[in-house]
């Protein structure tokens, strides 16, 4: 009987548990979860703050889920060390567990700049239920809250705070919002819409100084010299993968690169979710695709391979969908075309809607939609089909080259 060990009990870890139950129902599965809570939807945290859902709706499983025979949950515990040679892990309470196959689905934690990371109760990230509860508490009182970072999380949080009745102030270091998921024009449309909804946005701005004020709030000084009093500063400046359990085997802060079977470079160790670095088909490079659908798919594919079924991962495709205070936004694949390499653009604008398709040598590699987003799924399939054809052609070419040799 195989013993599967799953480190991490969020989206990817849970998808893996479900797939393992399905494909190897008699195996023993141990799940190690750093959080005490049962798994919950992190993506819903901004919706919780906005008041779209209540805390009970965040649960991903019934409380009885982990009572199934053969399934053990070690909640509130962390894997602190992995020994790939001995095939054991050590937990934070010094217990050592052996495994046959290990899945690292430990996720990632928010990056808070060094100067502000400790000693400030007014500074937080947005990653856990506790973070969301803290933000909600202040939002309910209509407080001014500084959101640092103009990526999808920062934008969604600023919108949620507005809906909750708080006064969000979005502080972005780059000259525009959503610099990785939108082009200049789409970003400008999003910015205009958010500003009209009452969200103050400052671009090309960073926090240079943070001071605790006497009333328990914070007084931040921005790079343009402005002083800004606020109750809370939330950093949404990206995440760092949790790989410390690998010690010297992995450079700190680097994600675990996996092959198409979701295997890391260590034998019998797989990775999925925000901790994994996968092949991304539109950029044709390895990157972390830290979104929900990727985590679910990677967790499931990893589990199937752990169970001995050969299931290839079809590759990540960077994509984001958001409702920005009533303005639908979806972006898939490449958002900006490099100046060289045979790229073509097709752009349509119509009032509050925007549609941009990016082609590489006649094949679709990216799309952005604002307003009317209905065609998004079809276009995603088109991008994947085109990429699969390219890969096929490349591999046939390789084979032919080998033959010539």
């Amino acid at each position, binding site marked *: 009987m195989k013993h599967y060990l799953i480190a991490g009990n969020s989206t990817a870890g849970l998808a893996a548990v479900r797939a393992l139950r399905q494909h190897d129902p008699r195996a023993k599965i141990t799940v190690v979860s750093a959080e005490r809570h049962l798994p919950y*939807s992190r*993506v*819903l945290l901004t*919706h919780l703050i906005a008041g*779209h*859902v209540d805390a009970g*709706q965040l649960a*991903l499983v019934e409380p009885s889920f982990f009572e199934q025979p053969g399934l053990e949950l070690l909640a509130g515990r962390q894997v602190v060390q992995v020994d790939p040679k001995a095939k054991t892990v050590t937990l934070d309470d010094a217990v050592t567990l052996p495994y046959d196959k290990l899945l690292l689905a430990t996720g990632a934690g928010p990056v808070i700049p060094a100067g502000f990371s400790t000693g400030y109760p007014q500074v937080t990230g947005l990653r856990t239920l506790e973070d969301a509860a803290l933000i909600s508490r202040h939002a309910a009182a209509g407080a001014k809250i500084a959101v640092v970072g103009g990526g999808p999380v920062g934008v969604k949080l600023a919108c949620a705070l507005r809906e909750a009745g708080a006064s969000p102030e979005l502080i972005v270091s780059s000259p525009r919002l959503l610099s990785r998921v939108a082009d200049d024009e789409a970003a400008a449309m999003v910015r205009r819409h958010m500003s009209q909804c009452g969200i103050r946005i400052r671009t090309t701005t960073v926090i240079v100084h943070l001071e605790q004020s006497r009333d328990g709030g914070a007084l931040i000084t921005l790079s343009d010299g402005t002083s800004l009093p606020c109750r809370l500063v939330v950093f949404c400046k990206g995440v760092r993968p949790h790989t410390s359990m690998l010690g010297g085997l992995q450079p700190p802060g680097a994600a675990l690169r996996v092959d198409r079977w979701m295997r890391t470079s260590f034998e019998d160790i797989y990775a999925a979710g925000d901790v994994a670095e996968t092949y991304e088909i539109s950029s044709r490079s390895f990157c972390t695709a830290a979104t*929900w*659908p990727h985590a*679910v*798919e990677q967790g499931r594919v990893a589990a199937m391979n752990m169970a001995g079924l050969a299931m290839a991962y079809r590759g990540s495709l960077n*994509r984001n*969908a*958001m*409702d920005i205070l009533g303005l*639908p*936004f*979806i972006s*898939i694949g490449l958002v900006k075309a490099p100046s060289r390499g045979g790229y073509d653009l097709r752009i349509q604008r119509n009032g509050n809607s925007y549609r941009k398709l990016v082609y590489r040598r006649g094949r679709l590699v990216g799309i952005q939609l604002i307003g009317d*987003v*209905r*065609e*998004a*799924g*079809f276009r*995603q*399939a088109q991008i994947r089909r085109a990429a699969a054809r390219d890969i096929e052609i490349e591999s046939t070419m390789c084979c032919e080259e080998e033959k010539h040799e």
Partner: protein
Amino acid sequence: MLTTIQVDPARCDGCGRCTVACAMGGAPAGGGTGAAPRPPRLWIREAGTRRRIDVCRHCETPVCANACVAGAISIDESSGTVRIAADKCVGCYSCIMECPFQALRFSGGKAIKCDGCSGLSSPLCARFCPTGALQAARSGGLAPRRRRHRAVIRKAGP
């Protein structure tokens, strides 16, 4: 045995009876016809020179359900249909980003799609289609992979 609807867009002349039938008679929870009109759950769309019928295929591993961050989309075990629990949907557009069949739309801030008319003996869109573009059929003879591509709606049968 599952009862299915097969979609053949080439036969569709765009009359729109299916969408009217869907809007008028959709089976809300509990079943029964004669409910108040609601937005239809399937759509006829002109795509270039071709006509398409956007309707849920009720996939066996639905990409929309994988992508749903709120756990609002699931497979109904008794009928095999893919359902949206409207009270759970947070309107994030993730499902629309995933579905290659464009089978989902938004209505009132929530995602909507075909529910397979599970409360009825056969799906209304097929019953009212005069050209055979939508047909109720048995799915047993088709291989699963082919079934997915053939645009079918699965339904529990006797």
